[in-house]
């Protein structure tokens, strides 16, 4: 039994924020500097809408675009660190809102930049085990809610979005390969929203903290062996991969990771400029763009990798 990605749809937050908008709040920065150094020209910030609203809109888009029979969906899984409530599970709310059957599985899981690769692995396992035939995998974040107004670096970087992917036992766009995962919780304080949970109940959930250099060093250490291990597990040589699609963290991180692994520029997909860092949604946004660019060629193989908050990382292959 195999599992396939059938289709992907995305929904960005409702407010487009340009570099000119950022510079208005931080006059000692320039539009050019943000564009050249961060590699982002615009990002999206959710207004009133929550992450689950973004996931809902992405799912609706997918269902309409692909004329999906909603009664064929037997699981809905949401990756988010911006749930609507502590309880209930946001995926349960979305099952009803989307009008899915009541005999479906529905749950959330809490991961960031590695979330989509985890989702593909979870969905594939469910399909291979015969637990489901068609799964709606959703990712959605509104990190901007957690970012302090005065934190210009993170405001320029993070973007709010939701995505929906249909994963199926039926043949589709990409066959999902074997995943490799990794975890090192010793780095948990380096990218964190401390308040609002049980450990610091009196603090508001905000002030997202990121120790950029430490996260960067973790990435440089973790990702090259992750790529090697994923190639090995899928019995692939480096040159067998037509394109590497990585979590769009930021321009610098991507440049140095690409160089460290010696990936040629034309085999390294970038779509940071017009979307920003949307956390667990960067890879599906890349996939959506990659498909729309007409770059999918039958038989081509791709390697996806996500890495970040946790620390948590994962990679998986796809075959068109």
């Amino acid at each position, binding site marked *: 039994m195999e599992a396939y990605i059938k289709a992907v749809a995305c929904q960005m937050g409702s407010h487009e924020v340009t570099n000119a908008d950022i510079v208005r709040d931080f006059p000692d920065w320039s539009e050019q500097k943000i564009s050249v150094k961060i590699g982002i020209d615009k990002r999206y910030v959710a207004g009133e809408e929550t992450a689950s609203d973004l996931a809902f809109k992405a799912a609706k888009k997918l269902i309409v675009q692909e004329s999906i029979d909603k009664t064929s969906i037997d699981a809905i899984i949401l990756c988010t660190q911006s749930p609507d409530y502590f309880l209930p599970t946001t995926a349960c709310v979305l099952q009803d809102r989307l009008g899915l059957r009541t005999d479906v599985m529905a749950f959330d899981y809490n991961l960031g930049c590695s979330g989509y690769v985890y989702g593909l692995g979870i969905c594939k396992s469910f399909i291979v085990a015969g637990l489901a035939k068609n799964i709606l995998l959703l990712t959605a974040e509104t990190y901007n809610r957690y970012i302090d107004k005065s934190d210009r670096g993170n405001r320029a970087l993070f973007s709010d979005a939701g995505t929906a992917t249909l994963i199926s036992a039926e043949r589709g766009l990409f066959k999902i390969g074997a995943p490799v995962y990794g975890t090192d919780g010793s780095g948990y304080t380096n990218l964190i929203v401390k308040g609002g949970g049980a450990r610091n109940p009196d603090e508001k959930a905000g002030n997202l903290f990121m*120790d*950029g250099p430490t996260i960067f*060093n973790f990435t440089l250490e973790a990702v090259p062996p992750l790529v090697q291990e994923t190639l090995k597990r899928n019995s692939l040589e480096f040159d067998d991969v037509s394109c590497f699609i990585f979590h769009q963290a930021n321009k*610098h991180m991507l440049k140095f990771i690409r*160089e460290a692994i010696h990936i040629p520029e034309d085999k390294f997909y970038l779509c940071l400029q017009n979307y920003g860092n949307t956390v667990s949604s960067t890879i599906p946004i890349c996939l959506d763009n990659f498909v729309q660019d007409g770059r999918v060629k039958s038989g081509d193989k791709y390697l996806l990798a996500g890495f970040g908050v946790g620390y948590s990382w994962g990679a998986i292959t796809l075959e068109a």
Partner: protein
Amino acid sequence: MDIKEFIENFAAEFEMTEPEEFNENTQYRDLEEWDSLLGLSIIGMINNNYGVKVTGEEVKNAGTIMGLFKIVESRVK
């Protein structure tokens, strides 16, 4: 390790500062272009060119290019 080459690699990470402005005594954090993102680039440059890990704190506190060079040199096998 060659300090001249290190200075060239260091200067190459800057987009808006001319290469001639860099020498071993350059207090890089005083350069107008310096910011935390350049700190990341320097960490990446050192990792990819010398196979050595330096921390954000070390980049922050090394002072001059020579100061950073000495840290890297002490770790290169």
